[in-house]
């Protein structure tokens, strides 16, 4: 029991990264990237931010700044990709939301996402509010609370206590169900319909995994798609709601979760 509790504490506490490369700490590398950005050298800033990410730094600010650098460099696809990644880590960050919305408004393809399934809609909207870990912990806490209340109801017979306990249990049960629904939708979406962004300027979507197949439609940089499967050097993707689907070469599309 005690060990489990300790394990729980360790999971929530973010770990401080002490990284070293050529004697430069991650913080110094970050500072250098920000300076490059502010000097207007966006390509160099992109390289430095990517370096940080390759070192294993997982911080929404890195992704947000990288997204900005890509945006300024005119690469909408990578900008949206990195804003999405930043949002996965800091879903309630206003700046990320604002820049993501602005970047999305500049994309070429008009996607009607209202035909998306209920599960993926729930997953998409919960992405703007909770991280996966928050949902995991929230659902677990609600579950423990609900069990504790149910046990208390079966032991504490006082009429007032019974009423309070039953009301609380109802509320906790509702919260538990809501949290569990979001948690489940996110898990299912991550497993079966992982989100991805078109990062190539323009990409032809073909009917099969190869150059020889006919081009069915064209997508542009920044369009958000769902990855269906990967076969060799080809990725099968679909648009939200499965209206359109086809194959694109690997590398023209990047999954949001990496």
């Amino acid at each position, binding site marked *: 029991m005690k060990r489990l509790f300790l394990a729980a504490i360790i999971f929530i506490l973010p770990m401080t990264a002490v990284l070293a490369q050529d004697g430069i700490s991650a913080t110094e590398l970050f500072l250098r990237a920000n300076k490059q950005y502010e000097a207007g050298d966006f390509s160099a800033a992109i390289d430095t931010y990517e370096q940080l990410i390759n070192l294993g730094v997982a*911080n929404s600010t*890195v992704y947000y700044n990288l997204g900005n650098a890509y945006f300024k460099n005119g690469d909408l696809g990578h900008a949206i990709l990195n804003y999405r990644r930043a949002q996965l880590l800091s879903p309630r960050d206003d700046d990320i939301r604002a820049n993501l919305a*602005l970047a999305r408004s500049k994309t070429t393809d008009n996607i009607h996402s209202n035909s998306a399934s209920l599960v993926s809609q729930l997953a998409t909207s919960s992405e703007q509010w909770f991280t996966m870990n928050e949902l995991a912990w929230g659902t677990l806490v609600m579950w423990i609370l*609900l069990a504790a209340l149910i046990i208390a109801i079966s032991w504490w017979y006082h009429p007032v206590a019974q009423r309070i306990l039953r009301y609380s249990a109802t509320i906790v049960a509702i919260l538990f169900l809501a949290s569990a629904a979001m948690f489940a939708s996110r898990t299912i979406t991550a497993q079966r319909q992982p989100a991805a962004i078109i990062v190539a300027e323009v990409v032809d979507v073909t009917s099969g995994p190869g150059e020889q197949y006919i081009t069915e439609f064209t997508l542009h940089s920044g369009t958000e798609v769902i990855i269906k499967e990967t076969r060799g050097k080809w990725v099968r993707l679909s648009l939200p709601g499965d209206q359109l689907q086809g194959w694109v070469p690997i590398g023209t599309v990047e999954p949001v979760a990496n």
Partner: protein
Amino acid sequence: MNNYQLPTIRTLSRRLIVLLAFFSLTVPALAQSPITASVDRTTISDNETVTLTVVVNSQSLTAPRPTLPPLDGFDIVGTSTSNQISMVGTTITSEGQYRFQLRPTKTGTLTIPAITISLNGQTYSTDPITITVAQGSSTAPPTTAPQQSAPAPDTLNGQDFFVEAEVDNPEPYIGQQVIYTFRFYQAVNLFDQPRYDAPNFTGFWSQQQPNQTQYTTQAAGRTYRVTELHTVLFPTVAGKTTIEPAVLTIPGDIFSNGDILSTKPIDLTVKDLPTGAPADFNGAVGHFTLDAAVDSNKATVNEPITLKVTISGDGNLENLPDPTWEDIDGWRSFESKATTDSSFKDGKFSGTRVYERLLVPTVAGTATLPPVRYVYFDPDAAAYRTLTTPPIRVTVAAAKDEPPIPAVSSNGKQDISQLATDIRHIKAVPPKLATAQPPITHSAGYWLLWLLPLAALAGNFVWVRRQSKLRQNTALARKLHARKRALKTLAGALNATDPYNTIGQALTDYLSDKLARPVGGLTRPALAELLTDAGVDADTLQRVQSVLTACDMGRFSPMATQAGHTETLLSDTKQLIDDLEKVL
């Protein structure tokens, strides 16, 4: 000085007044009676009402209320009072008006008897009034039924109310001012405000003037108070048009039926504007003058001056077309809001419209603001006229080293206008940079935590089940061993200090065990109900009751019991338990 004074003229006259006053008080017949009674008509039909007005004058703040004598042949269906106080010098007089609405209950000649009032110890009375009540329809002139539009009488010839409407010009040009005047003549006072419903004025731009004109006039021997309402109209469509009747609704009260009066429709012929209008004519019709002025003849580059252009005259000032503003070389000009100040005076709707324009010079030197031109149509002369202001000279000084002043509105504030949208700037380096962690759902410990409440719930379930089963088993065991336990208690009863109590307790315990609930605290009827529900017949029930009663009696009054009674009770109880055993 001699103390004796001859009475002066003044003191003499004062005495005379006192004497006269005394005289008038003591001999009321000579003075005007302070109470008068009148009716609005003396001939009515039996389905109508008559209004009896009693006026009481007194020298007090409130006139005393007269007491109405019993009225034979009338029902009082409504009353109303009004009290008017007036002060002449230091004398306060009040006039109380008491109005009674009377409905006849029979036909024939009816009399309203004299009404008396007691004032300053004196009794005054009115003359009796005779009223003739006819059968069926009224012999009096019929009154207009409410909610029915009466045709407007042509002329004012002695009616109580009269309305009329007229226009000052039945043949106006499009856009020419027409004054529509509605007059309400009233010969009697109204208690409630009448309601005026203006016509629709279709085909006109209309503006009703809030001010009413009131005056009095004489007609057919009556004095009328006249209320005039004016509406300024500007025709918008050429051709023949009609202004629908205006309707005035006089609300009915308990003394009078309401009335609806309407004016006659007015026909107008709206003339189109003649051809040959100048190119810069924008539709202004009326009589106007034009004036232009700047707030300062000395300007500085990039500092605005105000050009004020005033159009005054009569016409549709609210909707007046703007003058055409020409671009001025070396100046930037900004539209500013126009203000209108108009009023209705002497039968004309006139006023001014002021345009304020901000002009910002861009080059230094002497500049001339070009004249402002305004073209309008003069309906009286049936001609187009062009107004021109004289040119204005302005000296522009070179700019001080200041940024150009943007267009400022009157309160000096400027609306924020977003020039471009950019992404929000990058964030600073966070104090802590965490390395990527595998998601918590990938750890087995997390999922083990999920099992924890599940295990707790399962354990709780098993525990609760066992407890309830145990409780059930105890009850069963007690039920099975109830007889044995009772007989054991009864065996020791004779040797107990209180045998009756022991016997009673034995039976109560037995029943408690059998019914799986304590019965000691139950009332006899409640116990009887429980036993009946358990299937005990009435006879056995009777025996249970008698044993318990006997125990109670024996316990509380041992002297009353006979010897050997305890033994009998004991054997009866044993027999009863044996009998109960078959049922329970």
